[in-house]
C-alpha cells in the first residue's frame, strides 16, 4: 500500500487523532449530565409558553461533553501550536502576562454602568493607552471605542465626512482606493456614502503617483491608503501623495492594519495622515482570529480631532472622567458603540506596550521586518518574489515558479498542511497572480523560520520535478482530506438533521 493511503483503522481514529462525531450524533435523550429533583407541584407561571415536546437537545454525561470539546480543540491550529505565517493578519505571540492582567477582578468584573468613582483604575488604563497611541503616532485625538479594524475605518471616514459637511463641502463624494487595498477600504467608503475610484499600482508594487495625481479633483473627499501596503512594501512616495491630497482639499486616511511594521519608527503625523485606525489585536498582541475580539482605536489629526466620536477619557482635578456629552467646541459625529469599546483588549494592549516599552516596540517592528526579509532571501531563489526587495513585515510571492508544473497555489498550500504548517495567505493581494503572502512576525526564531523555509523549498523542488499528483492529492495527514469547496459553497449543509426514525416492522 502506498504511503498516500494509510491502512484504515476499525474506529476511523488515527492514533490520537480521534474521529469525533457531532455532539448531536452522540447524544441520547435518556442521558443527562446532571441529576436534579423534579420540582414540587407549583403553579404554571409560563403563561402557556411551556415546552410542548422535546426540542432535540443532545443528552450526554459530563465526561462525554468534556471529551467532545477537548477533542475538537485538539483539531485547532493556533499560534500557540505552531508557526502561523498568514500575511495580512499578523498572528503573533500573545504574552501570558497580558492575559493575567486582563483577568484581574478589578478589570474583568467591571460593569459599564458602574459609578465613575469605582472604576478610576479602568479609566486610567484607557487614558494611559490613549496617551501611548497618541505618542506613537503623533496625532491629536484618539477614539478608543471602534470594535475592530473595519469599525475603526468607519470611524475615520465618518470623521472625514463630518469635517466636509461642517465646511459645507458636500460635493466631495469620491474616495480614492488603490488596487492593492484591503477589501474593507472600499466597503467602508461605500458605507459612508462615498463612491470609490480605484488607483492602479506601478511596476514596483507601489501606488502610481502620476495616476494618483491625475485622479485628484474637487470631487475627491479623501484617499484610503495602507502603508506598508498589502504587498508588504513601504509606499516610498507617501509624502508626495499626502501633499497632493491636501493640496486638492481632500483628507488622507491611512489603513493602520500594518502598523506593526513601523511602530516606534515612523510618526504617523509626519506622513500627513488625517485619520488612521490601529488594530490593537494585531500590533499589540491580543488574541484574535476567531479567538477573541479585536479593537480598532482611531487616531485623528488636528483637522479631524473636533469631530472625534464620544466617549473619551479626560483627567482633571477630580480624577479620571469619561466624557459622554458634547463639551467645549467639540463637534463629535456621534458614537461608535453603545458603551466604551473592548476594554479587555485595552488592558492586554497596554500590558504589552508597557512591558515592551518604547525601545522594545522599536525592536519588535525591526525584528518583524528582518524576519520577513529572511524569508524573502531564503525563498527568493526557488519561489518567485512579486516585487524587488527589501520588503517590510511580509514577503509576497506569486505562482510564476509553478508555471507549467500543474500545481496551483492552493495545491501547494495543501501540501504545507501535511508538513505541519498553517499556509500563508493565498490569492491576496489580487494584484499578483496566485499570491502567497507570508508574514512571520517578530515571534519566530531563526530555527522556526529555517524549518519553515526547508519545508517550502523541498516542496518547491518537488513541484518543479513534476510530481503534480503529490500536490493535487494533498493533504494526506490532516483530520480531513481535500474538501470539495465548490460543493460546500453551492450546496451548503448548514444544519444537522436527525436521521429518519427506523420504521417498525409492520
Amino acid at each position: 500500500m502506498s504511503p498516500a493511503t494509510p491502512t484504515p483503522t476499525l474506529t476511523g481514529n488515527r492514533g490520537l487523532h480521534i474521529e469525533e462525531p457531532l455532539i448531536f450524533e452522540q447524544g441520547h435523550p435518556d442521558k443527562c449530565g446532571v441529576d436534579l429533583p423534579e420540582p414540587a407541584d407549583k403553579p404554571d407561571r409560563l403563561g402557556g409558553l411551556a415546552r410542548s415536546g422535546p426540542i432535540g437537545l443532545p443528552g450526554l454525561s459530563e465526561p462525554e461533553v468534556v471529551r467532545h470539546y477537548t477533542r475538537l480543540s485538539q483539531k485547532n491550529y493556533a499560534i500557540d501550536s505552531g508557526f502561523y505565517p498568514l500575511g495580512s493578519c499578523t498572528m503573533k505571540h500573545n504574552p501570558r502576562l497580558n492575559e493575567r492582567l486582563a483577568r484581574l477582578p478589578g478589570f474583568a468584573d467591571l460593569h459599564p454602568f458602574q459609578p465613575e468613582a469605582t472604576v478610576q483604575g479602568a479609566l486610567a488604563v484607557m487614558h494611559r493607552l490613549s496617551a501611548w497611541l497618541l505618542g506613537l503616532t503623533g496625532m491629536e485625538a484618539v477614539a478608543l471605542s471602534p470594535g475592530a479594524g473595519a469599525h475603526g475605518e468607519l470611524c475615520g471616514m465618518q470623521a472625514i465626512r463630518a469635517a466636509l459637511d461642517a465646511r459645507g463641502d458636500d460635493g466631495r463624494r469620491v474616495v480614492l482606493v488603490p488596487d492593492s487595498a484591503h477589501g474593507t477600504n472600499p466597503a467602508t467608503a461605500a458605507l459612508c456614502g462615498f463612491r470609490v475610484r480605484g488607483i492602479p499600482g506601478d511596476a514596483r508594487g507601489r501606488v502610481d503617483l502620476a495616476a494618483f495625481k491625475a485622479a485628484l479633483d474637487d470631487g475627491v473627499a479623501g484617499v484610503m491608503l495602507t502603508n506598508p501596503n498589502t504587498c508588504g512594501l513601504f509606499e516610498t512616495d507617501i509624502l508626495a501623495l499626502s501633499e497632493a491630497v491636501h493640496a486638492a482639499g481632500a483628507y488622507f486616511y491611512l489603513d493602520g492594519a500594518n502598523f506593526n511594521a513601523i511602530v516606534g519608527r515612523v510618526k504617523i503625523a509626519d506622513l500627513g495622515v488625517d485619520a488612521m485606525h490601529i488594530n490593537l489585536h494585531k500590533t499589540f498582541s491580543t488574541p484574535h482570529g476567531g479567538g477573541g475580539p479585536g479593537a480598532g482605536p482611531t487616531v485623528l489629526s488636528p483637522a479631524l480631532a473636533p469631530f472625534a466620536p464620544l466617549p473619551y477619557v479626560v483627567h482633571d482635578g477630580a480624577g479620571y472622567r469619561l466624557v459622554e456629552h458634547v463639551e467645549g467646541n467639540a463637534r463629535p459625529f456621534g458614537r461608535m458603540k453603545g458603551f466604551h469599546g473592548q476594554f479587555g483588549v485595552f488592558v492586554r494592549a497596554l500590558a504589552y506596550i508597557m512591558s515592551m516599552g518604547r525601545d522594545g516596540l522599536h525592536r519588535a517592528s525591526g525584528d518583524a521586518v528582518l524576519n520577513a526579509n529572511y524569508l524573502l532571501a531564503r525563498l527568493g531563489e526557488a519561489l518567485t518574489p512579486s516585487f524587488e526587495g527589501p520588503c517590510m513585515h511580509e514577503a509576497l510571492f506569486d505562482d510564476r515558479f509553478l508555471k507549467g508544473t500543474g500545481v496551483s497555489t492552493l495545491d501547494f498550500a495543501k501540501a504545507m498542511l501535511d508538513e505541519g504548517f498553517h499556509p500563508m495567505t493565498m490569492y491576496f493581494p489580487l494584484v499578483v497572480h496566485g499570491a502567497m503572502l507570508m508574514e512571520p512576525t517578530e515571534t519566530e526564531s531563526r530555527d522556526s523560520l529555517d524549518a519553515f523555509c526547508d519545508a517550502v523549498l523541498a516542496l518547491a523542488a518537488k513541484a518543479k520535478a513534476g510530481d503534480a499528483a503529490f500536490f493535487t492529492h494533498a493533504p494526506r495527514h490532516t483530520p480531513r482530506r481535500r474538501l470539495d469547496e465548490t460543493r460546500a459553497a453551492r450546496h451548503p449543509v448548514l444544519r444537522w438533521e436527525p436521521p429518519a426514525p427506523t420504521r417498525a416492522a409492520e
Partner: protein
Amino acid sequence: MSTLYFTEDHEWISVDGDTATVGITDYAQQQLGDVVFVEVPEAGKVLTKGDEAAVVESVKAASEVYAPVSGTVTEGNADLADAPAAVNEDPMGEGWFFKLTLADAGELDDLMDPAAYESFVKGLE
C-alpha cells in the same frame, strides 16, 4: 444577426440592434475557477458604462462585472442563482448575466472584436 464585442475586463457583449446580452468570457471563468454565486441586476436598473453591474464569486475570489456600455437592464439571468455552474460550463451561452437596451451604440466602438480579444488574452499568458 448579433455582433460580439469584448472588454479588457473579460466581459462579452452580444449586440442585436439596440439590445445586448452581457456575460463573462471563457478566459474569465477559467481564471475564477468554480463559480459558486452570481448576483445579477434587476430589470429597470440604469447602468452607466463602467458601473458595477453584477457580482460573481468563485472558490478563489469575488469579482465585479462592470457594465461594458451604458443602458437599461431588461432582464437578469435568474437561473444563475440556483445554477452558478452554468458560468463555468457555458460562459458564452447559458451562463449569460444580463440583457440591456443600449443607451449609446457609439460606446461599442471602444470595445474589442473577437480577433482583438483573442490576441489581448494571448498577451496576458
